[in-house]
C-alpha cells in the first residue's frame, strides 16, 4: 500500500468504465482480490488518533500504523478484550510505542472497518507492469450504526515508469477522480461518517471567549464547558473503564471551584454560595477512589524503588488497596447516581444560563478582559511575594500553599487564554509548568509519605506477612523522603527561573496586548 497515490472515486462512476478507458493505452490485468476486517481501537479521548497513530486488531494480531497505513512495528499479539491497557501487551516495541501515548487510559473498540481490495496491473506492449492500481471499498460499523466510506483507488508508481504514471493520473482526473493530496486515512473518514469530532472528548481545557464578553458571559461560558466535561466523564467513571474518567471529572470540579473562588467578588454571592457548597461535596465524595487510584497506578514504580528482598511485602499492600478501592467505588457510584448530583448539574446549568440577565448584578456587566487583567496581576504578584519569602528554613507548609496558589493561577490563565495573545500565554504557561512540577512532586511525595506512614501504623495484628509489608513500607518511606529532600533542594533554582525579569516582562506584555483573533470579531 505504501507510496500509492489515493484518488476518490465519485459514486456515480463505474470502475469497469474507468478501466476500459485506460485500455487504450495499457493492457489491464486483474491480479487478485483481498479482503480485510479490522477493529480499530483508541482511547476515549482519541489519544492515538491525535498522535497520528492507528491501532487495529485483525484476528489475533494487533497492528500499529501511521495515518497513511504504514506499519510502525511488526504486528503483535494481545488479548482479545473489549478493553485493553498497554500492560496487556507483551513486552516489546509495540507496547513501548503505545505506552507514552496511551498512558493509563484504556483502549476501546471504536469501530470496525471491512474492506475489499482489488488489484489491477496496467501493462505496456511488452506486457511489463508499468502502473498498479488498487481499488478499495470500505464499509464500517460502530455499535448499531453502519456506514460506507467513499471508494478510492490507489495508484502505485513503479520506478522508472514516471511517464506512464502521469498518463494514468491524467486519465483518472479526466474521468472526474480527485486526488486526496494529504493521503488516505480511513480512520478519519470513518470519524466523519459517524460525526465524531475527537476534540469533543479531549481532556485538554480550551474555551473560546469573545473579546467583548462580560464577566457574567465569560463565567457562564467557562463553567458550562467544565460542566459538560463533568457529564462526559460520568458514565466512564460509573463503568470504571479507566482511572482517567474520574480524574478528569474531578479536575473540572476543581477548576469550577477555583473559578468561583477567584471571581468571588465578581459573582452574586447569595446565588453562588449553594453551588460552592455542592461542588465541595462533589470534590469530597469523589476523593477516596482517586486517592487509591494514585497508589494503584504507582505499583510498578514502588516495586522499582525497593530492593528485591523487600518487594514481596508490597503484594499484600496492593491487594488491600484494591479491595478498599472496590468498596470506595461502590459508594462513589451511589453518589454519582444520586438525585443530589443530578440536581446539582441541572440547577447549575439553569443558573449559568440566566447569569448574564440576573437583576441587581452590576459586576456581571463589566468587561471580562479588564477584570481578568486585574485578577491576573494581583495573583501573579502574590505568587512572586510568597515564593521569594521561601528559604531553606521555611516550613514545608509554605511550599504547599505556594503550590495551591500556583495551580489557581495556572487555571486562571487557562480560563482567559483566548482573551490574550495565545502564544504568549502558552509560553508563560510553559515556564510556569516547571515550577508547578517541582511543587507538585514535592507535595505528592509528602502526601504519599503520610499515607504510607498511616498504613504502617495501622498494620495490626503483626503476622509474618504484615511484617514483610511493614518492611516494604518502611523502605518506601525512606526512599520517598530522600527524593522529597532532593526536590526541595531544587526549589530555589526553579523558582528564580520562574520569577526572572524575562518572565515578569512576558506577563506585562500579555496584559498590555490584545488578542488579535478575538478582537477581529468586534
Amino acid at each position, binding site marked *: 500500500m505504501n507510496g500509492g497515490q489515493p484518488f476518490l472515486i465519485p459514486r456515480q462512476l463505474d470502475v469497469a468504465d474507468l478501466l476500459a478507458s485506460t485500455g487504450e493505452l495499457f493492457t489491464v490485468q486483474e491480479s487478485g482480490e483481498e479482503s480485510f476486517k479490522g477493529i480499530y481501537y483508541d482511547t476515549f479521548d482519541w489519544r492515538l488518533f491525535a498522535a497520528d497513530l492507528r491501532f487495529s486488531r485483525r484476528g489475533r494480531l494487533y497492528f500499529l500504523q501511521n495515518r497513511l497505513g504504514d506499519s510502525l512495528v511488526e504486528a503483535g499479539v494481545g488479548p482479545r478484550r473489549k478493553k485493553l491497557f498497554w500492560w496487556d501487551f507483551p513486552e516489546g516495541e509495540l507496547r513501548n510505542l503505545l505506552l507514552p501515548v496511551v498512558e493509563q487510559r484504556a483502549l476501546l473498540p471504536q469501530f470496525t472497518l471491512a474492506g475489499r481490495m482489488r488489484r489491477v496491473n496496467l501493462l505496456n506492449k511488452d*506486457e*511489463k507492469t508499468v502502473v498498479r492500481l488498487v481499488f478499495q471499498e470500505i464499509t464500517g460499523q460502530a455499535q448499531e450504526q453502519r456506514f460506507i466510506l467513499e471508494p478510492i483507488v490507489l495508484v502505485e508508481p513503479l*520506478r522508472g*515508469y514516471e511517464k506512464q504514471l502521469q498518463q494514468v493520473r491524467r486519465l483518472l482526473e479526466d474521468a472526474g477522480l480527485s486526488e486526496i493530496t494529504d493521503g488516505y486515512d480511513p480512520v478519519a473518514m470513518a470519524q466523519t461518517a459517524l460525526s465524531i469530532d475527537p476534540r469533543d472528548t479531549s481532556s485538554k481545557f480550551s474555551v473560546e471567549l469573545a473579546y467583548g464578553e462580560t464577566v457574567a458571559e465569560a463565567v457562564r461560558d467557562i463553567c458550562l464547558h467544565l460542566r459538560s466535561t463533568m457529564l462526559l466523564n460520568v458514565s466512564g467513571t460509573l463503568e470504571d473503564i479507566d482511572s482517567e474518567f474520574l480524574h478528569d471529572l474531578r479536575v473540572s470540579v476543581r477548576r469550577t471551584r477555583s473559578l468561583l473562588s477567584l471571581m468571588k467578588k465578581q459573582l452574586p454571592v447569595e446565588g453562588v454560595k449553594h453551588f460552592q457548597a455542592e461542588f465541595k461535596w462533589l470534590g469530597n465524595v469523589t476523593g477516596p477512589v482517586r486517592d487509591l487510584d494514585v497508589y494503584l497506578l504507582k505499583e510498578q514504580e514502588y516495586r522499582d524503588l525497593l530492593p528485591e528482598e523487600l518487594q514481596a511485602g508490597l503484594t499484600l499492600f496492593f491487594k488491600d488497596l484494591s479491595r478498599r478501592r472496590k468498596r470506595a467505588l461502590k459508594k462513589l457510584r451511589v453518589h454519582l447516581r444520586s438525585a443530589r448530583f443530578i440536581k446539582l448539574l441541572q440547577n447549575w446549568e439553569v443558573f449559568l444560563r440566566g447569569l448574564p440577565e440576573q437583576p441587581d448584578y452590576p459586576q456581571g456587566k463589566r468587561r471580562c478582559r479588564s477584570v481578568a487583567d486585574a485578577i491576573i496581576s494581583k495573583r501573579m504578584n502574590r505568587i512572586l511575594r510568597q515564593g521569594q519569602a521561601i528559604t531553606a528554613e521555611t516550613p514545608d507548609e509554605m511550599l504547599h500553599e505556594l503550590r495551591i496558589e500556583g495551580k489557581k493561577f495556572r487555571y486562571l490563565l487557562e480560563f482567559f487564554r483566548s482573551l490574550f495573545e495565545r502564544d504568549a500565554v502558552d509560553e508563560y504557561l510553559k515556564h510556569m509548568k516547571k515550577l508547578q512540577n517541582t511543587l507538585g512532586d514535592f507535595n505528592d511525595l509528602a502526601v504519599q509519605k503520610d499515607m504510607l506512614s498511616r498504613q504502617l501504623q495501622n498494620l495490626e495484628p503483626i503476622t509474618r506477612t504484615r511484617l514483610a509489608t511493614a518492611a516494604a513500607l518502611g523502605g518506601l518511606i525512606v526512599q520517598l523522603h530522600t527524593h522529597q529532600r532532593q526536590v526541595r533542594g531544587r526549589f530555589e533554582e526553579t523558582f528564580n527561573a520562574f520569577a526572572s525579569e524575562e518572565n515578569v516582562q512576558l506577563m506585562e506584555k500579555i496584559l498590555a496586548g490584545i488578542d488579535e483573533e478575538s478582537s477581529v470579531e468586534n
Partner: protein
Amino acid sequence: MKIFAIYSSKGGVGKTAGAVNLSYSAAQCGHRVLLCDLDAQGAASFYFRVRPGKKFNGKKLLQGGLKKFIRASDYERLDLLPAHFSFRNLDLVLAKLEEERRRLALQKLFKPLADEYDVLIMDCPPNLTLLSENIILAADSVVTPVIPTTLSLVALKQLLKLFRKVGAKEKRINAYFSMVEPRKVMHRDMIAQYEQYAIFRKVQIPYLAEVEKMGLHRQPVAAVSPASIAAKQYTSLWLEIWNRSIGG
C-alpha cells in the same frame, strides 16, 4: 550492500539464467535487490520485459547518476538496471582512465546505491576485458556457472588466473555446476573430480526444460512455477552463496 558478479569468460553457460533467478530468490528472501544487466545483449532485461531508457549511455553511467536509469521489475523488492548497447563502450571509457581510478570506477559507481539495496547482482558478458577486471575488483563475490565439461573448466582456470593477476582473493569465487545432465558420463566424471574443491558450492543447477522456457514466459522460473525443481534449486543456491558471503 553485497555485490555479486555472475561471470564466466565462456558464453552460454547459464550466467543470465543464474542472474535472473538468483535475483528473484534473493528478493523473495526479503532482500532489496538490484540486478545490473551489464551485457550489451540485454538478455536479463529481456527476461524482465524491461527496455532501456533512450538516453542511457555508458559514459554517463561511469560519471554517476546511475539511479535515474533504474526500473522496477514486476516483483517486490527487485529492481533492474537495464542493458544498453553503449555498454560496449564501457571498456573504452575505462581504458581512458588512469590505472588507479579505473580500479575504483565501478565501486564508486555503486556506492550511492548502498542505502537502497541490500544485494546487487551483475549479469556479465562472456569476455575477458578491462571491464571484467573491474567487475572482479568491485564484487564481493564472483559467482561462476560451470558446465561439467572439459571446455568449461578452461574458463574457470582463466578466472583463477585473472584473480591472481589483479590480486583478488580466491575465496571470493563461488563456482557452481550448471546445466548438469546426470545421464551424461562426462558430467558425472567431471563433478566427481572437482566437486570437493573449495571454490565449488554444493547446490547444482540441473539441465531443466523450465529454465529453457524462460525465454517464452519472460519471467523468472519461480514466478511461473514456484514449486518447480528449478525454483527450489536456485533458492537453495542463493541461500548457500548468501550465507557464505555473510559468514566470511
